[in-house]
C-alpha cells in the first residue's frame, strides 16, 4: 500500500517539523507530541517501501532518546558524557527534520514539485533552482561513492592522518564534478525550452485528498500546541 500525498502537504510537514525542532521540548507532554510527529514520516517511509532507511532512522532515534532519558542529565560530566550529550541532542533535535526532508526528497517527483510550487504562485526562478537542488541529491551521492572508491584504491581514506586533507580529498573532486554536471545539465535543459517566456504546463494533476487534510490538521495542531505552551502560557 502506498499513500500518495500532495507535495504541498509534504512541504507543510517540513515547515512544521523544522519550526518545532527549533523550540525545545520541556514537559513530557511536549516530548510526546514531538516523538509522535517524528513517527509520521517514518511510517510514511515504510508505506512507501523504503524499509532500510526507515529502520535506520528509527533505530538511531530510539537509541538517542533512550540515552537522553536514561543516562544524561544536566549534571553529566567528563569527556565521554560531553560527547554523548552532543551526539544525542543533535540526533534528537534534528533527526525529525532530517527524516521528513529525506521522505519528501525520496518520494516527490520533480514534475509534482514544480507543479505544486506553481499552484502556490512561487516565481519560476525559485522553483527551478529548488528543483535542480532536488535533482542533485542523488547525483552527489553517486559522485561521492566513486570518489570514495578512488580514495580506497589509493589508500588515502584517512588523508595520511591529516584531517584537513581528508576533507580536501573528498570535497575538491566532488565540487569539480558537480560544477561540470551542472553546466552540462543547464545546457541540456535550455535546449529543451527551459526558461522560456511561455507559461509552463504540467502533466501532474494535484489534488488534496483526505489523507492530506488529516495530516495538515494534525501538524497544524502540533504546531499550535508548541506555540501555546512555549510562548503563551
Amino acid at each position, binding site marked *: 500500500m502506498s499513500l500518495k500525498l500532495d507535495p504541498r502537504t509534504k512541504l507543510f510537514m517540513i515547515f512544521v517539523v523544522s519550526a518545532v525542532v527549533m523550540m525545545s521540548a520541556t514537559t513530557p507532554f511536549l516530548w510526546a507530541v514531538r516523538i509522535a510527529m517524528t513517527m509520521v514520516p517514518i511510517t510514511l517511509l515504510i508505506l512507501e517501501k523504503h524499509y532500510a532507511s526507515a529502520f535506520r532512522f528509527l533505530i538511531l532515534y530510539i537509541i538517542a532518546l533512550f540515552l537522553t532519558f536514561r543516562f544524561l542529565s544536566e549534571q553529566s560530566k567528563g569527556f565521554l558524557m560531553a560527547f554523548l550529550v552532543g551526539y544525542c541532542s543533535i540526533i534528537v533535535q534534528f533527526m525529525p527534520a532530517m527524516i521528513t526532508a529525506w521522505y519528501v526528497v525520496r518520494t516527490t*517527483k*520533480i*514534475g509534482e514539485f514544480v507543479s505544486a510550487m506553481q499552484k502556490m504562485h512561487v516565481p519560476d526562478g525559485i522553483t527551478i533552482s529548488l*528543483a*535542480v537542488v*532536488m*535533482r542533485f541529491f*542523488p*547525483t552527489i551521492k*553517486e*559522485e561521492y561513492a*566513486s*570518489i570514495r*572508491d*578512488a*580514495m*580506497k*584504491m*589509493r*589508500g*588515502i581514506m584517512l588523508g595520511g592522518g591529516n584531517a584537513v586533507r581528508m576533507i*580536501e*580529498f573528498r570535497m*575538491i*573532486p566532488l565540487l*569539480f*564534478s558537480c560544477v*561540470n*554536471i551542472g553546466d*552540462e*545539465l*543547464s*545546457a*541540456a*535543459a*535550455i*535546449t*529543451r*525550452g*527551459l*526558461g*522560456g*517566456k*511561455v*507559461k*509552463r*504546463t*504540467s*502533466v501532474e*494533476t494535484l489534488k488534496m485528498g483526505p489523507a492530506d487534510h488529516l495530516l495538515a490538521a494534525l501538524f497544524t495542531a502540533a504546531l499550535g500546541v508548541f506555540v501555546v505552551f512555549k510562548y503563551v502560557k
Partner: protein
Amino acid sequence: MMQTAVEIRNVTYRYKGAEAECLDNISLTVNAGEALLLCGASGSGKTSVIRLINGLIPHYYHGDMTGNVIVNGRDIAKTELYELAGIVGTVFQNPRSQFFSIDTDGEIAFGPENIGLDPKEIISRTEVIAKQMKLEKLLGRSLFELSGGEKQRIACASVAALLPDIILLDEPSSNLDWETIGQLREIIGEWKRQGKTIIISEHRLWYLKELMDRVVYMDDGNIVCEWSGAEFENLSEEETKAMKLRPAAVKEQYAQMFEEKADSGTFVQTEVSDGILLRDFYFSYHRKPYVIGKKRFSAADGEALNLCIPKLFLPKGKVIGVTGRNGTGKSTFLRCLCGLEKDCTGIIVSDGKEYKKKHRIGFSYMVMQDVNHQLFTDSVEAEILLSMKEKDEEKCHAILDDLGLLAYKDTHPMALSGGQKQRVAIASAVAADAKLLLFDEPTSGLDYAHMEKVGELLKQLADSGSTVLVSTHDPELIEMCCDYILRIHSGRVASFSKKSE
C-alpha cells in the same frame, strides 16, 4: 528544389578566454531530411558546429563570433533559445548529465511542458513515442536506476517528444555498449524514415553504416573534406587511419565476439605455469554474506551470485581485453578483483604469495572511467608522490618521463586535457607498484589518435611486467593491443582465449 534546413555562413568563432579560434570561417549547408555525419579528431570543432545549430553558441557559451547561422529560416543570433526548442533537438554525450527529472515519465514530459503544451497532448505524445522507441518497460522508473544505455534512449525520447524537425547528436554512443549502440542505430534509422534532418558528431563510425547521406571531415576548425555516405564507406583503412579516424566498419571476427551468443557448457581452463591465479571469486549484490556469523559464498550458490569465478589463470605481462554487455558483470569483476568490494572472498595468488581482502588493493589498481574522480592533489608531481609508499622523487620523475608528463609536473591536474589526466591516473597506478592494472573502458569517447596512444601505453605497461586487464566496447582497441580476450557473461567467464590473428 530541396529545402534548406541549416545554413552556416562564414562563421568564425572563438570561445571566451581561449587563445585560438575553434571554428575558422566555416560554411555548411544541410538540406531538410538529410543525415549528415561530422567526423574528425577531438578539438576539431565538431561539437562547436553542433552548438552553433542548437543556439548554445552564442547564447550559452559566450565568445567572439562572426558570420550567420540560419536554421529553418531563422537567424540563430536573433532567436531566443526557448523558441528553438520545438525546432532543434539535441542528444548529448553524457547520459548522466542531460536529464532534468528523477523519473522517466517526467523527463519525457519536461520539454513539452516547457513550451506550454496542453497536458493531454503531452500524455498522448509520450505514449506514441514510448511505443515508437519500445520504451514501455522503462516508463515509471527512476532515472538513477537505469543503465547508461537506457538513459540515452530516454534522452532520445525526450528530445523526440518536442517533435523537432532537426535532431543533433553529439557523440551519443560514447557511454554505450555493443547492444545499446544497436538500439541507438535503430532510433536514428526511425528518425530518418520520419524525414527528420539528422546531424551527428561521432568518433565511433561503424554503427552509422548505410545511415548517412553525407560525411563531413573537420580538422582544426575547418571543413577539409566531404563525401557521400557510400563514398565514405568505400574508403580504405589506410585512408581513414591517415585522417586519424576510427575505421568505418568492424571486422567480422570482432563483430562476432561482441554478439551475444548462447554459450554451451562450463568453462574449464588449463593451468598456466607463469601466471596470476584468481581463486574463489564469488560475490552477490543482493544477499549479504552475513547471516549468523560469516557465511561464505561458494559455487553452490549458483544463480544468486553476480560473480562466480572459481578459478582463473591470467597470463603475466599480457594485455587482456574484458568484453561483455553492460550490466553483465564486467565492472563487478574488476571491482572485486581490485578489492573495492570487501565482501568478495576472492584470493589472488602470484609468485606463491596470496593476496586476500584488503591486500588485493595494492597488488591491483583500477583506473576508472571518469578520471576526474581519481585526482586529488594540486600538482601532477604531488599526485604521483601520494601513491608512493616511500616518497622517491627520482623514481617519480622517471615514471612521469616514461608517460610524457614530465613537462607538466607542476601543473594542476584539473588543468590538463582529458588524455593527460588519464595518463596521470595511470602514472599513479605505476607509482603504487601495482602488478595487476585494471582499466574500466579507457577509450570511450576518445578519437582514433588518442585511442592509439592508450593502446600503445597498455602494451608498454604489459611489456614492463604488469598484467593489464582492460574492459572495453571498442573492437578497434582490442585489435590494437590485446593479447587475450576474456568474455564475461552473467558474472561467469564465458570464454578466455588468445586473440586470433
